[in-house]
């Protein structure tokens, strides 16, 4: 998270009126009422945004979670909630989720890389039309097409196959994401053409050029579309819900509501499921944070 990093563009040219001009509000680094006020506000912010997570984790490990209370530590630590959740099929749901997230992300990244290379390096008839099409899919909320998509999934036009109940019913629809195509395209446009021209003289074909020359240079952009793609696929809710034949096809986030509405188990069990569903997103987030900041900043300036 370095987006807040403020660079002093003035250098030493103008006498710096102290560090107080680094931030818009002019927070002072020296001890005083200003610093205390900032520390108090920061603690409140930290509490509001992080405490719910800690409480959830604590309650998931707590035996006595029928009486869900506020706390940062389980009063009587136990793994019971996780065991009950496992009996209710939590690991099967997690496997569904991981297969879908892995497959969907791999497909999405491949599709984006190929499409972006064509858009960034070639001029061809109908390019504007293709760009417009991709832009349109970005303006089309996925919720809007939920009902017709479910009929399409159970009977693919022309091919006549039904994907319903298979992991492909979720993987294929998330395979094309205009956001990651655009991020990739913008990045590839910035790469110097000279390297490719030299490789072209050595007789490299388009596919090998992309895989061996361009792709290794794209690692920062791959990080960006990797983290956003993963979070996007993991966050899918309506799609796995309508693509499933029965509850056995659900992903973990969708299956949480089954645990929540199961009156034979306590509220601790759904929290155990939530904690398990939380782990992959947090892992990806902490590993690829800098990519994330870059991605959002890039998206923000492009509008």
């Amino acid at each position, binding site marked *: 998270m370095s987006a807040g990093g403020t660079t002093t563009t003035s250098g030493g040219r103008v006498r710096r009126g102290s560090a107080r001009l680094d931030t818009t509000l002019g927070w002072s680094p020296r001890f005083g009422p200003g610093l205390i006020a900032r520390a108090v506000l920061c603690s409140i912010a930290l509490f509001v945004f992080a405490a719910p997570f800690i409480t*959830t984790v604590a309650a998931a490990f707590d035996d006595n979670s029928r009486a869900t209370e506020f706390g940062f530590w389980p009063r009587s630590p136990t793994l019971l909630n996780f065991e009950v959740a496992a009996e209710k099929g939590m690991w099967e749901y997690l496997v569904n989720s991981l297969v879908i997230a892995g497959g969907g992300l791999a497909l999405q990244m491949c599709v984006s890389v190929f499409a972006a290379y*064509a858009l960034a390096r070639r001029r061809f008839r109908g390019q504007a039309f293709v760009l417009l099409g991709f832009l349109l899919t970005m303006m089309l909320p996925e919720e809007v097409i939920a009902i017709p998509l479910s009929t399409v999934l159970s009977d693919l036009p022309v091919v006549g196959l039904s994907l319903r109940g298979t992991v492909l019913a979720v993987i294929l629809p998330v395979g*094309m994401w205009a956001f990651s195509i655009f991020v990739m395209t913008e990045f590839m446009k910035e790469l110097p053409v000279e390297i490719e021209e030299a490789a072209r003289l050595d007789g490299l074909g388009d596919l090998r050029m992309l895989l061996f020359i361009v792709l290794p240079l794209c690692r920062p952009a791959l990080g960006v579309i990797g983290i956003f793609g993963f979070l996007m696929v993991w966050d899918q809710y309506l799609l796995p819900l309508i693509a499933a034949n029965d509850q056995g096809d659900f992903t973990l986030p969708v299956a949480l509501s089954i645990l929540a509405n199961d009156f034979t188990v306590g509220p601790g069990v759904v929290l155990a499921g939530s904690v398990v569903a939380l782990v992959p997103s947090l892992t990806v987030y902490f590993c690829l944070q800098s990519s994330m900041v870059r991605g959002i900043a890039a998206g923000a300036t492009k509008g």
Partner: protein
Amino acid sequence: MAWAFLTPALLLALYFKFIPMFEGMRLSLFDVQPFLGDIWVGLDNYAKVLTDERFLSALWHTVVLGCGQTIAAVLLGFGLALLLEGQARTLWFLRTAVFLPVVTAVAVVGELWRLLYQPTENGPINSLLSFVGLGPVPFLDSPHTALASIMVVGTWIGAPFNMLIILAGLTGVDRTLYEAAYIDGASVWQRLRYVALPALRPAITIVVTLAAIRSLRVFTEVYVITGGGPAGSTEVWMTRVFSLGFVSNDIGVGAAASVLLLAATLLLTLSVQYVSRRRARR
């Protein structure tokens, strides 16, 4: 070559975006009966949507929720950005922690808040409220407080995202302007109002647009947290569409409502574009 590389993306877009979109428009004009054949009904489905009381109340809830959480999340995000701006290691840590709600799957956030909103006296939030002498609030259990409770969750998810975009905008503000303002004796408030805010206008436009579009199509939070209840007090446009299309199988009417939502989204996006273009030209 170009077309070969574009084929996967175009095929997927065709099959899972464009065909469903046109299929949805087609379905919205029919009375859809599986196995019996569809009957052409013209605009009857649209008329049904626009005169259905539950749809009208869902529309009202969507607008209230959207306006409320958009305004709250933008203001809170702006405040957080001003508070957490800076290069210190502690601030970096705080930004990382505050951003957690954005990266968490919405369904998980929903379950988290269902725990926090326990209506009993020893529920997490209620036990905090009792510290300051406020009685147990029913939160999700009462039609009077349920929508506001969902609005809080939406704000909680939206504010950190807005914070990050506004922080990126703040990085772009020329620091020499702050120095100039300081030398001219401008107060902190004046610096914020006349130097930072004008520079942040593009960032704030983006943040408001994204939040407004997101709240028009809100589904997962509401579906997970209340499912539209109690007594329909939190039913929004998409939960209504979902129950028509997938529970009561009234596919034609559901499709018509979806098309209306698409129209509203496009209208909103295009009018924001138009207004910001015009302002930029001036």
